[in-house]
């Protein structure tokens, strides 16, 4: 039995709840079962449906935006299996587990490591300028890409079944992840320069001083690379600036007093 289009749309929407019961034992396992269930209901009858369902409640973990690709492929394989069209050597559970981890690594690098910092850096340019639409720019700009992946990859997963692996290979996503991360670094460099320059201009201080910002930033970056927590870095930085502020005021007052005395 072919899974109707309406059911596939319903499954797509259910995939938006994939992580509702995320837990340390099975990660997205229960969510994956929850999303697939309407499709499995169309393919299997009562007893067989329960047996197949048990197969999907176990451990499963992949990137949330690439899960639709796995779900689409698995639905196609289940459909073929029920129709007796599936080759004997293909184990659907093995397929699901084999693709989940590499897809998770690709998705983490591309979306969390690359696209999110890039979109945030672009939106922050607007936010620093005091433009409230920055939030909307971030949400819309960022979500265009995941929405495309969630939809198109689900469709192709269902269309291609086991060959969906070739489909994802064609897109060279690991290369895109590196390019996106590099773009994010470049935009963050521009954003930092913009923030520092604006601040110095506002305080009517010499602009060239801003270039010195690179020294503490690179130092903090190297410290962070050693595994020092961000929370600690925040409080060390804030504490240092606070104390320097007090010191500066005291010194200024001292010079004024000395000047008066002289």
């Amino acid at each position, binding site marked *: 039995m072919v899974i109707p289009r309406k059911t596939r749309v319903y499954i797509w929407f259910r995939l938006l709840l994939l992580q509702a019961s995320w837990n340390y034992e099975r990660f997205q396992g229960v969510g994956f079962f929850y999303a697939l269930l309407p499709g499995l209901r169309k393919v299997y009858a009562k007893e067989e449906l*329960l047996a197949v369902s048990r197969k999907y409640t176990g451990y499963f973990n992949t990137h949330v935006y690439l899960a639709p690709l796995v779900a689409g492929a698995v639905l196609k394989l289940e459909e073929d299996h029920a129709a007796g069209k599936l080759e004997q050597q293909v184990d659907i559970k093995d397929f699901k587990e084999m693709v989940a981890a590499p897809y998770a690594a690709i998705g983490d690098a591309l979306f969390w490591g690359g696209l999110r910092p890039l979109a945030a850096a672009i939106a922050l340019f607007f936010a620093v300028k005091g433009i409230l639409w920055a939030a909307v720019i971030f949400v819309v700009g960022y979500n265009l890409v995941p929405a495309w992946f969630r939809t198109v990859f689900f469709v192709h997963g269902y269309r291609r079944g086991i060959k969906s692996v070739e489909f994802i290979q064609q897109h060279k996503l690991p290369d895109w992840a590196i390019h996106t991360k590099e773009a994010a670094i470049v935009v963050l460099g521009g954003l930092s320069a913009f923030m520092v320059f604006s601040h110095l201009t506002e305080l009517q201080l010499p602009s060239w001083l801003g270039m010195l910002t690179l020294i503490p930033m690179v130092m903090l970056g190297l410290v962070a690379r050693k595994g020092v927590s961000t929370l600690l870095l925040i409080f060390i930085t804030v504490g240092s600036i606070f104390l320097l502020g007090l010191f500066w005021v005291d010194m200024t007052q001292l010079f004024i007093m000395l000047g008066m005395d002289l």
Partner: protein
Amino acid sequence: MVSGLFIGAVISLICGLDRVAILQVMVSRPIVAAPLTAFFLGDAMVGLQVGVMVELLWLARLPVGAAVPPDDTQVAIGGTTLAIILGERLGNAGLELVLLCLLVAILLGKVGQYFDHFARQHNVRLAQKVDAALDSGSLLMAELQHLRGLGSFSLAALGTYITIITGGLLIIPILLPLIQQPLSYSSSWIELALPLVGVAVILGTVNVSRAITLFCASFGMAFLLMWLV
């Protein structure tokens, strides 16, 4: 004040669920959550200010596998709510108050990780109940167990929000008179430093060869262009 806290709680719940449990359309990011909260509380610019300061801080902490990153969503929402509510109550909406609210929220927000951890731990029981439901032949019960997980994540989000708000309302009115004047000497520099710390952490942890070279080149070029123009 009560209505303001309630609005903050509703936004905290919605954004908290977006963070892990549903959608992941990034309304949970501080750059969105903070202005959204502030907009409903009547001072959107405070939210934008908080959003800029918090957005980059933990962006390098990826939600990979079982890792639970710090809850910057609730830090942003809690910090914004505190700044606006206390600003009205203490008659002070200056940068010093916003900074103090944010720093207290950052500190108290650490508990968010524990609440998140408990929620994920609690959901293990739901997974076991799914097995039991399937054994008893009830697919509907199994489906419902999954949806019950939303309750755990909602409680985790609200727990963090309530901790930040309660702690903030108790600490800040005492701390502000003591620290406001000394903080005013360095507040604008701290406002600048917070996003830069976030950028530095991203630089240090991003898996890109020559990240520092790329960053310095981009920073230098942009700076030079702004100086020349």
